[in-house]
């Protein structure tokens, strides 16, 4: 079964003119042997080998060209002069991915700066509002002396002023946080480019493997391929498609269930 599908791939891999030549030369070889012309047979066997080698070289050449083009075409479309300058400095995928790490890191830090600035403002507003509310309740219960009331009067006035200012501060932090998410556009483009390159390379590698298996079959080579167990002890990072996998938890609930089944 496997052999048959391999054979199909091989036939698809060879060009019609090559197979035609092979068929022709094989028939001629057969004829020379039948008629006892061994010298001619030897020449034909050499020629057959050359046909094989040449079609192999042609395939390898094609692969090399395609790989080279994939890498050369791996360019992002810069939309501004500034982007152009930044992006022209990056020539390979690892530089691009490092750029993604840098951009996302910057955005995360900018966002956290703004959040850390806004939190004390929100806390101060909350504290003053609840203090004023207590005073207000005292006033409503008629427990307040006129002097205290005058003080409260001024404090409420101040609170309205600072409330407007603090709300503006929080609002502008929020809109800056919104803007800090603009990295997604650039990093998204970069990652899509890298993904396309990886897919192209993957496809080319697959064709190379198919071609190599062709050569193996012609030369009768059998490879011993040992599958390597990767140790999870050093950590392997986030798992993809966790929902579809049995050996991976798909969230905190799974972790908790697993740990409680172990007596945690």
């Amino acid at each position, binding site marked *: 079964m496997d052999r048959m599908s391999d054979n199909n791939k091989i036939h698809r891999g060879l060009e019609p003119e090559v197979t035609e030549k092979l068929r022709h030369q094989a028939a001629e070889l057969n004829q020379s042997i039948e008629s006892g012309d061994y010298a001619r047979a030897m020449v034909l066997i050499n020629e057959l080998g050359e046909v094989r080698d040449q079609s192999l070289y042609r395939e390898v050449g094609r692969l090399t060209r395609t790989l080279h083009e994939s890498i050369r075409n791996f360019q992002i479309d810069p939309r501004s002069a500034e982007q152009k300058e930044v992006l022209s400095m990056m020539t390979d995928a690892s530089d691009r991915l490092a750029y993604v790490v840098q951009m996302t*890191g910057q955005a995360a830090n900018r966002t956290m700066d703004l959040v850390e600035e806004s939190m004390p403002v929100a806390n101060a507003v909350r504290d003053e509002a609840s203090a004023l509310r207590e005073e207000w309740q005292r006033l409503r219960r008629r427990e307040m002396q006129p002097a205290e009331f005058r003080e409260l009067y001024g404090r409420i006035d101040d609170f309205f002023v600072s409330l407007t200012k603090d709300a503006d501060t929080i609002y502008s932090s929020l809109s800056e946080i919104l803007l800090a998410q603009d990295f997604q556009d650039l990093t998204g483009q970069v990652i899509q480019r890298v993904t396309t390159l990886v897919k192209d390379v993957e496809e080319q590698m697959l064709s190379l493997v198919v071609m190599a298996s062709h050569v193996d079959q012609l030369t009768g080579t059998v490879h011993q391929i040992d599958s390597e167990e990767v140790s*999870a002890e*050093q*950590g*392997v990072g986030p798992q993809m498609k966790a929902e579809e996998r049995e050996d*991976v*938890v798909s969230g905190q609930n799974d*972790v908790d269930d697993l*740990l409680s089944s172990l007596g945690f």
Partner: protein
Amino acid sequence: MKILIVDDFSTMRRIIKNLLRDLGFTNTDEADDGNTALPMLKSGKYDFLVTDWNMPGMSGFDLLKAVRADDSLKTLPVLMVTAEAKRDQIVAAAQAGVNGYVVKPFTAAVLKEKIEKIFERIQ
């Protein structure tokens, strides 16, 4: 309560630091892998360790094992906050003596719940 936060990404350390501050834990230090964390733990009198798993240098799992093997540190509560999600890994961490395991991405509520649970058990 003195807490050491170990993660190779400064953003994640900062998030955890902020969440811990909201929970009332303001005395925190940071380290970026096990190799930096271990000497700090040995000399710093920490009460609690929050660590990632996958880090260059010494991983959080190796750090956990080193902590449990050290006489002065072996009772230190350890919470793992990590993206490592293989069942085998969680079982291994449990066997190595982890006190809690939070899988990334996580929420503030989950972190709070796990920390409180660990302290309840200790008291």
